[in-house]
């Protein structure tokens, strides 16, 4: 038995145990123990993170002459580490006061189901990450989809249910695309095993690769929520019950990125992807994917800017940050890929922390609506601190970890000579800064509402995971080398030159980055600032918020003296007109098309002579395919090519 067997078996058994024991009060402590043990098991494989050999499971299944197998390589290990750490923090977060309140507000059963959904999600993600061939990948994929669906469907709210249904429809469509792609891959290369497929890919022509890449990209991209498949994600994640949102928001969608890296970068290879020219454009397929990534950073980020609810704002950011990862990976050099992969880790830490802070605010005040919050900093200072640390990370400002991964991506774009992508990435970052300030201002700063005067700090059970994550965000920001080690190992695993790094960042002849120095100097600066502030000036007195400049008027509690709605009104006068909901319209069009088609087919079967009509249509189709010459659409060519093998 390998360690991987232990891990998977342990998680599976733990899932069964949690399902059985879900109604007991000790379930929350129990689940924490489970994740701790699972993490320990994972750490036993930590050699993977430093360039160790892949760990194979001893358990295999034979299907259709294919051996289904499971294995962990450096990339899987990296993702699994993030998954388990986030799950651990989530379990810790929901084990205490939050869980009690959730039990009270809903039911013991509901809380138990949340725990079940969490462990099932973890299990299915581990299975997915451990997949050793395309079929097991697909199995893992389906498991993840349904586990996520379960998590989302736990919220009985109408909006949440609708979002969950929407998600599963999207996920099924994506699964179909993946299944089709896997079938075609099998057809073309005769195997499902990664190594064999990789070899088989070399013999395929460009159009076949193009079809495969498109299908895989669509299938995995739907899970990641890349443009134009981004519509399901934000609502679904935002409406997931508090702690669930922490987990889902932080890591769930990244499974799509994992599969994408695995299939497109590792198996197909970006050089092949880059060789495919897209007709009528200047782009090749790799560039096109990079642009998809860039647009995914911009559009959801600016949608986030318009949100008036903290959870939605964060969830939209989750979509947007996925774009950076895709962009980084698609730059295809060692720095860019490192940035993309590292961003997964960084993102998971601060997104989890942010969702936790927002959940803590909801726990204390009962709302995450910006119009009903404000001024909570005096009441919840530690939560505020965690949020500030995390938003600095999210905005990619030194010295937090988000800066490092974004720096790597920028640097790669610079070296690659991609001005437009660079600008797109910067636009995304600036949009992020704007919206995170809106988040922190409207929740914690400004005027404290009267009904929140007695709000207390979040309970300890919620604070500990939040503070733990904040420490991780800062520590990996100062010493990005820790994470870069793992990233480099993952890069080797997917066949890309590892990034050359040291503890403080990377060394480059044309200007590197050393976060230890940067942080040191920044803290030196803050120290100077503090000396100037505290020793050169006199003492100051804290005053009440009504003792405030109001043009000479007296402020009273009747006056709402807090700017929160339409926070970037000036900007919105310019770009407000650009929010045309074009994707939502597209989605509607698609929905109505599908319902029209189904109506049509329904009528068709009710018509008088269905058999004759079927025959006629088949004849027509056959005639069309026979008469098709070289100018037939790419898809048909690809199919033909696949069939001729």
């Amino acid at each position, binding site marked *: 038995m390998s360690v991987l067997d232990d891990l998977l078996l342990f998680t599976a058994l733990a899932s069964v145990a949690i399902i059985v024991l879900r109604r007991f009060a000790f379930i929350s402590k129990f689940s924490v123990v489970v994740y701790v043990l699972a993490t320990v098991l994972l750490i036993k494989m930590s050699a993977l993170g430093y360039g160790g050999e892949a760990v194979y499971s001893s358990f295999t299944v034979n299907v259709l002459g294919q051996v289904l197998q499971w294995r962990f390589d450096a990339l899987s290990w990296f993702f699994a580490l993030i998954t388990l750490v986030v799950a651990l923090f989530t379990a810790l977060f929901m084990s205490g006061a939050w869980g009690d309140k959730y039990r009270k507000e809903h039911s013991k059963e509901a809380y138990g189901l949340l725990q079940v959904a969490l462990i099932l999600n973890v299990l299915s993600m581990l299975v997915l990450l451990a997949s050793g061939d395309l079929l097991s990948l697909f199995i893992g994929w389906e498991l993840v989809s349904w586990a996520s669906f379960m998590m989302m469907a736990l919220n009985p709210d109408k909006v949440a249910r609708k979002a969950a249904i929407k998600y599963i429809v999207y996920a099924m469509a994506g699964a179909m695309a993946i299944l089709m792609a896997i079938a075609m891959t099998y057809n073309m290369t005769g195997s499902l095993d990664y190594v064999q497929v990789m070899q088989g890919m070399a013999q395929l022509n460009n159009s076949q690769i193009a079809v495969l890449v498109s299908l895989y990209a669509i299938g995995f991209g739907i899970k990641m929520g890349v443009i134009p498949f981004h519509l399901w994600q934000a609502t679904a994640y935002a409406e997931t019950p508090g702690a669930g949102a922490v987990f889902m928001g932080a890591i769930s969608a990244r499974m799509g990125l994992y599969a994408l890296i695995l299939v497109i970068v590792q198996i197909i290879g970006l050089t092949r992807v880059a060789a495919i020219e897209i007709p009528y454009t200047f782009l090749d397929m790799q560039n096109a994917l990079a642009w998809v990534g860039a647009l995914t950073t911009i559009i959801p980020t600016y949608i986030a800017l318009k949100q008036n609810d903290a959870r939605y704002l964060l969830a939209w950011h989750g979509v947007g940050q996925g774009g950076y990862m895709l962009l980084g990976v698609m730059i295809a050099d060692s720095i860019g890929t490192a940035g993309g992969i590292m961003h997964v880790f960084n993102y998971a830490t601060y997104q989890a922390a942010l969702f936790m802070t927002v959940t803590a605010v909801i726990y204390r005040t009962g709302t995450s609506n910006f*119009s*009903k919050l404000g001024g909570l900093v005096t009441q919840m200072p530690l939560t505020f601190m965690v949020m500030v640390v995390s938003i600095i990370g999210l905005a990619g400002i030194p010295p937090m970890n988000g800066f490092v991964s974004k720096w790597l991506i920028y640097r790669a774009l610079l070296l690659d000579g991609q001005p437009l992508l660079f600008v797109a990435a910067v636009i995304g970052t600036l949009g992020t800064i704007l919206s995170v300030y809106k988040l922190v201002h409207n929740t914690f700063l400004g005027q404290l*509402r*009267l*009904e929140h005067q007695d709000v207390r700090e979040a309970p300890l059970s919620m604070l500990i995971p939040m503070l733990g994550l904040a420490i991780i965000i800062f520590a990996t920001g100062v010493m990005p080398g820790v994470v870069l080690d793992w990233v480099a190992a993952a890069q080797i695993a997917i066949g890309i030159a590892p990034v050359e790094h040291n503890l403080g960042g990377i060394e480059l002849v044309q200007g590197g980055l050393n976060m230890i120095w940067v942080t040191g100097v920044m803290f030196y600066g803050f120290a100077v600032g503090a000396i100037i502030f505290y020793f050169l000036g006199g003492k100051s007195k804290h005053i*009440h918020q*009504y003792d405030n400049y*109001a*043009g*000479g*008027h*007296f*402020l*009273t*509690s*009747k*006056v*709402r*003296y*807090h*700017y*929160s*709605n*339409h*926070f970037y*009104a*000036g900007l*919105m006068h310019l770009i407000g007109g650009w929010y045309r909901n074009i994707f939502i319209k597209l989605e509607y069009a698609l929905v109505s098309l599908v319902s029209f088609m189904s109506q049509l087919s329904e009528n068709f079967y009710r018509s008088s002579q269905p058999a004759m009509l079927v025959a006629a249509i088949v004849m027509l189709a056959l005639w069309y395919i026979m008469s098709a010459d070289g100018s037939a659409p790419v898809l048909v060519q690809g199919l033909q090519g696949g069939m001729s093998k």
Partner: protein
Amino acid sequence: MRPENYQVVSLPNSDEYELFIGPNHPGIEGNYAFKLKLDGDRVISGKADAGYLHRGFEKLMEGRLWIQNLAIVPRICVPDPVPMEVVYSLTVEDIEKTEVPLRAQWIRVMQLELSRIASHLFTFGGHAATTGMYTPSYWGVADRDLALDLFEELTGGRVYHIYNIPGGVRRDIPNGFLDRLSDYLDYLQTRQNDYDNLLFTNQVFVKRARDIGVLNQEQALEWGVTGPNLRATGLAFDVRRDDPYLIYEQLDFDIPVQSAGDCLSRILVRRDELFQSVRILRQIIKHLPSVKGPVRSPIPNPLAWNVAKGESYCRVESSKGELAYYTVSDGGDKPYRVHVRGASSMHAVQVLENMSVGQRIEDVAQIMFSLDACPPEVDR
């Protein structure tokens, strides 16, 4: 006022918030307040809050002699005090049926126009400063100061002159005054180009001011808008020409009109008016030496002067708009009642409240300054 209670009332759940422009705010003209309710940067409603400058002038005047009141009337509108003196004198003369000597009338018109120039120069600077350009206000105030020097020479006071009295003006103009006035006008005309380049044709300023705070002619008439603000909507109405007083009928001047009714047209109307005033003053410089005679008709002992019983409503065109006094005398040594219809009493309150709805916070101050409201006229 104690802020009634700091603890009790819960905040409404709406997104609207309040912002206070004034009284201690650079976006307000004088000691006045404008309370805004906003959603984002859009004004939901505006509420004027006056009374900070209330001194009870009308009550004060009932307690003082007819002649004493001359000392306090100019204080009702600080930037443009001369029309106040003139219109008060006009009402008293109207009640008493006093003839004003022709020369005094010419001198009065000279003062009125010079005061108009000073007031407009002041307004340009204020308007430009609300859009962030401070240089015109420095220039404008400095150029206005030269006009104040002329006033000082003429009357002895820089700001408050108390030069007009019922029956004429206090004394004749000093020697060489007209030459210095002429020099000043020359100087102003050399500055015209500078002001045009800096302010009136400055593309950024035009962009800021055009189509902001539009007041069309129907609205303007409905809300009782007068003066340059009315002329900016396209109606060529001027009390000086349509209800002439003093010797305006003998003067040749145009009434500048703009049609758009926005902030830009209002400031352009004032700019044109300023140079029309220069034109009027040039005519006065030409004609005044030929008008001989006394500058005041004799009035009885001012400390025991019982003005005849009667009432009078007189109007003049001040730089802000139509300024009127309604004076009632019961035949005593003090006015029985004086009602001041401040030129900006409409502009600063109802018109502003109506115009600000739907505007953006960026433009509120500009609209206020473009209306050239003078708060003490509202408060009195």
